[in-house]
């Protein structure tokens, strides 16, 4: 068992100190660097909280779409990329909807870690601003 609090909670706590105590004390021209640091900590925090779950889900979905067998995620995605390049998801292709749904789901997961602010509020609120 790891010691509590674990990595993601430590990062959250440390980030709060930076935001509340350090950021206000910095001169304007140094704030940007600290905001970058806090952004990096947020991404790491979200990845730690999710653990391996997003990549495990991606692998399961991928196996249903391409014949990737025991291949790793990179190799499976390489196969998927080749199929997309060859037109497997063109309009009218039988697997278009399934492939698009997978791309949406995977991108949503990566966005949720890298920049959740860019995610639409509700799953279907994708209308242009």
């Amino acid at each position: 068992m790891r010691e509590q609090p674990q990595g993601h909670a430590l990062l959250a706590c440390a980030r709060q100190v930076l935001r509340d105590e350090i950021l206000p004390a910095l001169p304007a021209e140094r704030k940007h660097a600290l905001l970058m640091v806090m952004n990096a900590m947020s991404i790491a925090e979200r990845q730690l909280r999710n653990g391996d779950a997003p990549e495990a889900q991606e692998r399961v979905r991928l196996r249903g779409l391409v014949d990737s067998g025991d291949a790793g995620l990179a190799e499976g995605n390489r196969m998927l990329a080749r199929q997309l390049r060859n037109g497997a998801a063109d309009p009218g292709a039988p697997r278009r909807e399934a492939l698009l749904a997978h791309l949406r789901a995977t991108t949503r997961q990566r966005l949720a870690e890298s920049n959740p602010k860019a995610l639409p509020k509700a799953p279907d609120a994708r209308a242009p601003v």
Partner: protein
Amino acid sequence: MDDISRAAIERFVAAAAGADAVRIRSAGKLSGGAVQENWFADLDIDGGAHAGRLGCVLRCDSPTAGVAISHGRAQEFALLKTVFAAGVTVPEPLWLCEDPAVIGRPFFLMRRIAGTAAGHVLVKDRTRGGDRVQLAERLGRELARIHSVRPPQPALDFLPAVEGSPARHRIAQHRGFLDAHHTPYPVLEWGLRWLERHAPERGLVTLCHGDYRTGNYMVDESGLTGILDWEFAGWSDPLEDIGWFCAKCWRFGNVAEEAGGIGKREDFYRGYEAESGRRIDREAIHYWEVMAHMNWAVIAIQQAERHVSGEESSLLLALTGHIVPELEWEILNMTEND
């Protein structure tokens, strides 16, 4: 700038400007990069066409940049000369010195311009850049002047020729990169396939800035003072620059202002159309905005790779990689219906 370089630059400028004497009143290093150095230099010139006080910027390769890019400054100077002559608002290129004996590396001097370029400041602080209708129109006019430069241009013969459709050329470039990269990007493949299926044939091919966007021009409180950052200039479809300028990913969060986050798309278009005499096909721009997201995604992966590979440890480069999912999300939004 040591005393030897100072004296050498003074002698060089005196000869180049046909002056009796030149003194550097003050000089200092501006923003530096790994590849280039920028120095400000205030000159007192006696005699010749530039007699009087002259505020300049001196650009040279950094001492550690190596030999491979030593032609860079001469090419940049040729580009500035060409677009300055075409009426584009750029820092006026003054004198190029290719003789490494003078300060040890090639350099050129250009007239110094004032203002701010930071994109995130411009989209928030509306006191900068003057009236925003005029600024958007002006940026349209400036771009049309860049696009008035057509091949062939002997002074720009270092720019690679583009055969066939510029759109297909770009798609082939990106696929080549993705094939050689260690990590596959299925959403980018989806996007490239869409770009391939909708690719326009070769039409007008002009000089393109290649990175014409908010953040790469300078303004003061009354308006535009100069177009900057010419290192991606090349021959392409002029609509590529228009799509890059208007793409959502270059509005710095101010997405309602569709012209670079600083103005209305129609104001920008009006300036471009008035200057060029060509109507912008509104429908055709969508394609190039998808391409803009694709180009930026590939560049972001390449920038992140400089950090990931260990070549250059940088938090900014590292975070740039995390922009990619947002660009992919936008590509899906823009391409899922056809």
